[in-house]
């Protein structure tokens, strides 16, 4: 199993009446609710927590890309990832990911991911989402029905840029580049492992299967509701005669809160969980899905009505959220049992654990994360012994990695420099 400690980086100061007074947390969220000075503390705390997760032995630390979004303060995940490369030692840097249709030209992603891989010593896990309609269409203005074609071209360009060893010309529809020759290129060969976040598009299933990429379902609705979608993926894997059904072909995001007892979990985390589900996910429905963003095939498969939360999260309580599996919360034993259900039920080898929830304090977040790392994670490590050697979907760092801050003592410098 691979456990990634993920932080969406929510803005923790949305007012109590946010939902009543605002139509959306995303795209046209009220500028006045953001306080740049307060964000200084918020960003640094969130980075500290990601770094702490590395010391706890999580396999990865994760970040992602959202724009104009009150629950995601990472328009540029690569900036967060760059900070993490320096202050973490062992964890994979899981960037889930760069919305590659938005970068002009997309070789920018090939370059930045290569930089991250080089600085981190080969610890990069690269994610390539199409991006949500909110981010891609409404914030960044991409034409909905051309987004997938542009995404595909960006992917092909990035892969060629990583793989080819001679300068080449790329005559795409959206990118005309006479001299592609990225410098630097990634440590990991032929390329860093790729994870593709998806939301039920059949095209994305096939894309992952065809390229041996891991399919990640980053939902907030939990593992019980994810069953149908993930089954759709595994059915597709089987139908396409894929050589194996390794659980590492898939990943799943899950909100997780651990305390000493179930009751204590509710006492500690309830208000933060409700903050997230009731305020942070308050998205104006008009921004959810620009016409043309989904393919006809996906709409016709009925996937959307089946997987979408029917009426938002407004009326959900702690009981609804924990029993419904949106949130796995409780004592280490409760969490272990439910995680086992999740892992077996969805057949997923990659877990993206959302341990920081809503406006949770850093102390509570540390407490929950440490309990998980010490009392839950070890018991879940060996869920898939048959696939223990499947390393196709995880990073392969170099053995001897540079230590940040390893300059010599100033007093030794003249001698080392060869000065008289």
């Amino acid at each position, binding site marked *: 199993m691979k456990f990634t400690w993920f932080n969406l980086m929510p803005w923790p100061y949305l007012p109590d009446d946010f939902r009543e007074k605002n139509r959306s947390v995303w*795209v046209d969220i009220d500028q006045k609710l953001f306080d740049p000075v307060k964000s200084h503390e918020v960003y640094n705390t969130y980075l500290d927590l990601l770094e702490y997760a590395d010391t706890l032995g999580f396999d990865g630390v994760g970040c992602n890309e959202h724009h104009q979004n009150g629950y995601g303060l990472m328009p540029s995940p690569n900036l967060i990832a760059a900070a993490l490369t320096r202050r973490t030692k062992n964890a994979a840097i899981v960037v889930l990911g760069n919305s590659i249709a938005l970068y002009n030209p997309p070789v920018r992603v090939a370059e930045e991911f290569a930089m991250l891989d080089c600085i981190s010593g080969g610890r990069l896990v690269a994610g390539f989402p199409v991006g949500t309609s909110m981010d891609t*269409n*409404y914030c960044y*203005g991409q*034409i*909905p*029905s*051309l987004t997938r*074609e542009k995404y595909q071209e960006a992917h092909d360009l990035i892969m060629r840029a990583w793989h080819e060893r001679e300068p080449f010309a790329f005559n795409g*529809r959206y990118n005309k580049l006479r001299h592609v020759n990225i410098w630097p290129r990634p440590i990991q060969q032929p390329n860093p492992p790729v994870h593709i976040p998806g939301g039920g598009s059949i095209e994305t299933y096939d894309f992952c299967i065809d390229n041996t990429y891991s399919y990640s379902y980053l939902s907030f609705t939990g593992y019980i509701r994810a069953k149908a979608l993930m089954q759709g993926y595994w059915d597709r894997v089987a139908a396409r005669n894929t050589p194996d059904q390794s659980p590492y072909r898939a990943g799943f995001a899950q909100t997780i809160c651990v305390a000493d007892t179930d009751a204590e979990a509710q006492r500690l985390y309830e208000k933060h969980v409700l903050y997230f589900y009731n305020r942070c996910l308050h998205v*104006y*429905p*008009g*921004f959810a899905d*620009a*016409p*043309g*963003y*989904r*393919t*006809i095939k996906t*709409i*016709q498969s*009925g996937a*959307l*009505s089946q997987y979408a939360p029917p009426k938002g999260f407004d009326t959900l309580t702690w009981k609804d959220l924990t029993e419904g599996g949106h949130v796995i919360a409780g004592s280490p034993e409760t969490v272990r049992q439910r995680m086992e259900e999740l892992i077996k039920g969805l057949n997923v080898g990659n877990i993206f654990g959302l341990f920081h929830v809503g406006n949770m304090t850093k102390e509570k977040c540390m407490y929950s994360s440490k309990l998980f790392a010490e009392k839950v994670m070890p018991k879940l490590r060996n869920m898939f012994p048959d696939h223990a050697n499947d390393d196709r979907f995880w990073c392969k760092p170099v053995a001897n990695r540079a230590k940040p801050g390893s300059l010599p003592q100033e007093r030794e410098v003249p001698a080392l420099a060869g000065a008289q």
Partner: protein
Amino acid sequence: MDIKTVETPHVPVRYLEGGSGQPLVFLHGAGGATAVDPFLATLAGKYHVYAPLLPGYGDSRECPELRDMLDFTLHTWDVIEALGLKDPILVGHSMGGMIAAEMAAVAPHDVSRLGLIAPAGLWLDNHPIPDMFSTMPYEYPKLLFHNIEQGTALLTAGVALDDPEWLKGFLVTNARQLGMAGRILFPIPERGLLGRLYRIKAKTVLVWGDSDRLIVPAYAHAFKKAIRGAELVAIPEAGHMVTIEKPEQVLSALARLGT
């Protein structure tokens, strides 16, 4: 109106045809057109009307090769050629007006009479056009109609949001139609037309509803200023769907184009 098909180089095109008289090509707006469209019936009372559907509209086949404004413009010229028409009266509403204006700018010697009904295609920073793509269907009437109550009745007829099959059909239609429209209208319905309007040689009539809240009448004046000799007919008590609200008055405005 009859629904027929004509072959074009990229895709077979569905079109509505009816009436007799001078040939008139009508290009529909982002909402599309159907055989029972009352405005087309009004036009057909006087003209021989051809109303091609943009690929993806109605039951017509999609055409992934049409991606940008030039593609749309030349495709519609292909349709006119395939229909065997020469210098028909060219009329377009909203998105269709944008395409018609482009066609007249690209081939000024092939269009001598141009009717633009609340066309899209320009952008005025002081009058940002509402984002129809993120607008919920229940909010359409107040942007589209002068008489909001009647507009609501018109738009909600046959709607069954609680029926999953109906909803799926609705989403598929939206994805096909507005997905296509988005290629020239999303996220801002402007593709450089202003810089080309000077080329238009056609006698041009602009028709605008006084209470158009989608593309407000300030745009009528911007078009009038940019197209040499254009006449503007403002129609009171009509919104963006002036074709539905005041069809007879639109018909008389178009009569100014002569025959």
